């Protein structure tokens, strides 16, 4: 996987980068959230591992910014915390959009487990998106089955999902066919 690291401590950054590379991931490391965000915009990595306290932009600010700009592609965000992080801090982090946590000192097995879960979640998000993109349509009457399992006309379905409205007219082919009847 393509993984972005945001960590201002060079020792932890090198150690984490080394572990991820050994696990077969492609890693880009940055020393603050702002740099990591710019890199994310350019590379669209699917996993971010970020320290909490950093200069310029901290881990929570980075997470919020990534949630705002990631669009349909879900990004798995892991926050690296210190040993004495309290429950209130964890609450703030999950509210900001953090998916999982790693505690310093970083342990290779713990990293592997988190990334295993990350891969599974990211796989599910792709599947869900693909399912959402598939629209079940009746092959005869062309009605569409909506999320409530109700078959509705294509006009109503599009109106509900796109807020578009229809102006009714007649195309040349139908005009010829129906006017002549």
């Amino acid at each position, binding site marked *: 996987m393509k993984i972005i690291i945001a960590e201002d401590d060079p*020792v*932890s950054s*090198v150690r984490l980068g080394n572990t991820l590379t050994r696990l077969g991931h492609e890693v880009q490391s940055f020393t603050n959230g702002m740099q990591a965000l710019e890199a994310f915009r350019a590379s669209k990595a699917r996993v971010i591992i970020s320290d909490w306290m950093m200069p310029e932009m901290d881990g929570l600010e980075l997470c919020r910014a990534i949630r705002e700009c990631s669009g349909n592609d879900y990004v798995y965000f892991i926050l690296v915390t*210190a040993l004495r992080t309290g429950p209130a801090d964890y609450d703030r982090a999950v509210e900001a959009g953090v998916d999982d946590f790693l505690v310093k*000192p970083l342990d*290779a097995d713990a990293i592997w487990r988190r990334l295993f879960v990350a891969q599974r979640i990211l796989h599910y998000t792709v599947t869900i998106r693909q399912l959402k993109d598939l629209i079940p349509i009746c092959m005869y009457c062309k009605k569409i089955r909506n999320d409530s399992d109700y078959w509705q006309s294509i006009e109503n379905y599009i109106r509900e999902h796109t807020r578009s409205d229809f102006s009714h007219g007649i195309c040349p082919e139908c005009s010829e066919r129906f006017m002549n009847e």
Partner: protein
Amino acid sequence: MSFTSRQYPQLSSAFHAAAYTALGRLPPQLTALRCTLEALEKLERTAEGQESERATLIARMSETLETIEATLAPAFSAQRPTLVLDPAQIAILREEGLLESLAALFEEMASRTFAEMRAAARAGNSKALADAAHLLKGSAVNFGAAAFAATCQCIEQQVATASPATLEALLCELEVNQGQLIEALHRETGEG
């Protein structure tokens, strides 16, 4: 443990460092000792001729220290991390082939950051001091440097409320911890 007023000048900054650090980790009801120490320091800065007051303060301090020693010291020493390096963490780093490079990286970063902390303390920049302490703490835990990390944590937590003298004492202790840690890393990497 007791002191006389004549011995007072021999109470070096190292003693102050140790005392303040200990006080930072003791229960709040013992802040009386901190107040006594601070009063003593204040007195030291004022004009001479207040020997009796100084002697009273020193006596009070000695008494409180004895109480701490007798009743709280065992529990305190059990709580206080003394580990310079964690052999388990060192073994992992060695196995990963990272020990030498990370030790060198830490040594360079720690001495630079410590100089920045000194400058921040002089400038009264609490935030910069706390941030630097946090950075060092996160870095040191990679080596299982519990004593060093605990002092960093102490600085990080107390920086907003501590007096300049307390901060100075904590920085002194950190410098000592840092020296021990780097020496231990040198031994592990065969540079010592």
